[in-house]
């Protein structure tokens, strides 16, 4: 208990001292997680919308596969991407391994199923009367789709929040593809793992506090947006 309390107090002092190393780690984490979330959203939201909105053969199978991919372990994604970008892999010459780009690639693969399935759920649960009303008021298919997208925006926001939460907290991909290089690919979670290995809990606890604060702030921001949008 003393260890936790001491670490906690020291972590607060470290945060107050504006330690450069600490903030570099936080910045890398935010940059990588934001990039992955943005790219996955650009792919996953339209894909989810199209799957939910359109009827096509094999739709159920696609949804089942996506649901299965929700349980994808980060180490599996790490291994999978590693085989492509390692020196002997087909993308080896691009020198992606142990870069932030490598982490982003892995994280995008990890969260595309999350964004897509959450978007499918959000769009599928929208009352069919919205579609009928838009059509009877003379809307084209595209205008109807835009309206449905607007009505499903809270669910889609939830998809983005969940995805961001998943990538900012993951450690497997960042470690395997980023390599935990100080100042380059060291993220909050990889740094925490390293500090734990070294038996240095202060930085680990400080990073943990920052991680939770970021998640809380992001959720607070989206809640605020949702509240405004519902008016």
């Amino acid at each position, binding site marked *: 208990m003393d260890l936790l309390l001491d670490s906690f107090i020291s972590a607060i002092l470290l945060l107050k001292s504006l330690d450069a190393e600490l903030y570099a780690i936080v910045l890398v984490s935010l940059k990588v997680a934001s990039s992955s979330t943005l790219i996955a959203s650009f792919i996953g939201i339209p894909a989810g919308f199209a799957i939910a909105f359109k009827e096509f053969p094999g739709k159920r199978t696609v949804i089942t596969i996506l649901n299965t991919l929700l349980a994808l372990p980060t180490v599996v994604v790490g291994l999978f991407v590693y085989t492509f970008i390692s020196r002997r892999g087909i993308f080896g010459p691009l020198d992606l391994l142990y870069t932030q780009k490598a982490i982003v690639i892995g994280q995008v693969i990890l969260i595309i199923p999350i964004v897509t399935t959450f978007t499918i759920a959000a769009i599928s649960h929208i009352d069919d*009367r919205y579609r009928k009303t838009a059509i009877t008021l003379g809307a084209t298919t595209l205008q109807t789709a835009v309206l449905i997208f607007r009505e499903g925006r809270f669910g889609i926001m939830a998809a983005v929040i969940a995805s961001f939460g998943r990538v900012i907290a993951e450690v497997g991909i960042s470690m395997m593809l980023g390599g935990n290089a100080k100042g380059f690919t060291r993220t909050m979670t990889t740094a925490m793992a390293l500090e734990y290995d070294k038996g240095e809990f202060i930085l680990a606890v400080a990073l943990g506090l920052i991680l939770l604060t970021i998640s809380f702030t992001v959720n607070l921001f989206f809640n605020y947006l949702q509240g405004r949008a519902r008016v």
Partner: protein
Amino acid sequence: MLFGIKNLTKVYGGRKVLDIPELTLEKGKVYGLLGPNGSGKTTLLEILSFLLPPTTGKIVYDSRKVDFSESFLRGLRTEVIMVEQQPILFTTSVYKNVEFGLKVRKKPKKYRKKIVHEVLDLVGMRGFAEASAHKLSSGETQRVAIARALACSPKVIMFDEPTSNVDVENQIAIEGILRDINVRKGISVILATHNRIQATKLSDRIVFLFNGKPASSIYENIFSGLVRTDGGGNTYCLIHDKVRLVVWTDKTGYVKISVNPEMIKIFPAREVSSGDHGFVGRVIQLTDEGGDVRALVDIGIPISVLIGREEYKKAPILTGERVALVCPPESIEVM
């Protein structure tokens, strides 16, 4: 001619829910589509507002044969709008809801503003323009939905049970709006309702629907019951194990029956001795219906009786009073 329908059917899961051999609706009129729940009113409205293709049949709208291809329908949908029984408003302000149809028609902003205010005035909702649409009561929602449809300047508006979920105040307001839009704006109105009084009050013509088919008149007092024959050879229908109505039928087992309210005789309870066709009950409601009086009597089941004005004057009854009813077998149709 507004709509011409020939051999129209709609089948859902192997069940024919609509079967109309022929129906013609004229322009500029208010049509009441009258029938009990499940008679196919909503399905017919959805087909006529081009939201649902029929399974078979031909529809002519405004001298144009409808081919139900998406590109063809888009043009027609700008002229025909349906307001649903429980309309849904978009998650935004009342103003933006009403503006939607004009926006998708790419009307200029200034014009949109003018029309939105005009139609909100017409339905008495101008003061709610900036209100959040999802915070309105069901009556207000219905009025905004009507304004949203009117903003598109349609030639025809279909209303599906427009007052079924609203309070009396809104019901009166909505009925006034329906009359107004037909008389002042010349919009043809097709109104689906199961309320006979409302249909009579608002419509120029009434189309009766029963079990998906046009009927010569509305079936009322519809009950499910079991047909049996007693020791004396009389065939009767037992409803809810309470009421025995003598019927003329060869059918057996569970059936649906309809009792014609105009053919039921009603007397003060003391004047009648209980017979095969007689029941004693209590009057629970009296309403004026275009000169006649409609009495709702509880005889174990609620049954509606239509009494002629003169007949009523001769033997007036009051709510709460005990009365006797006679339902002759000829007043009962086994369906």
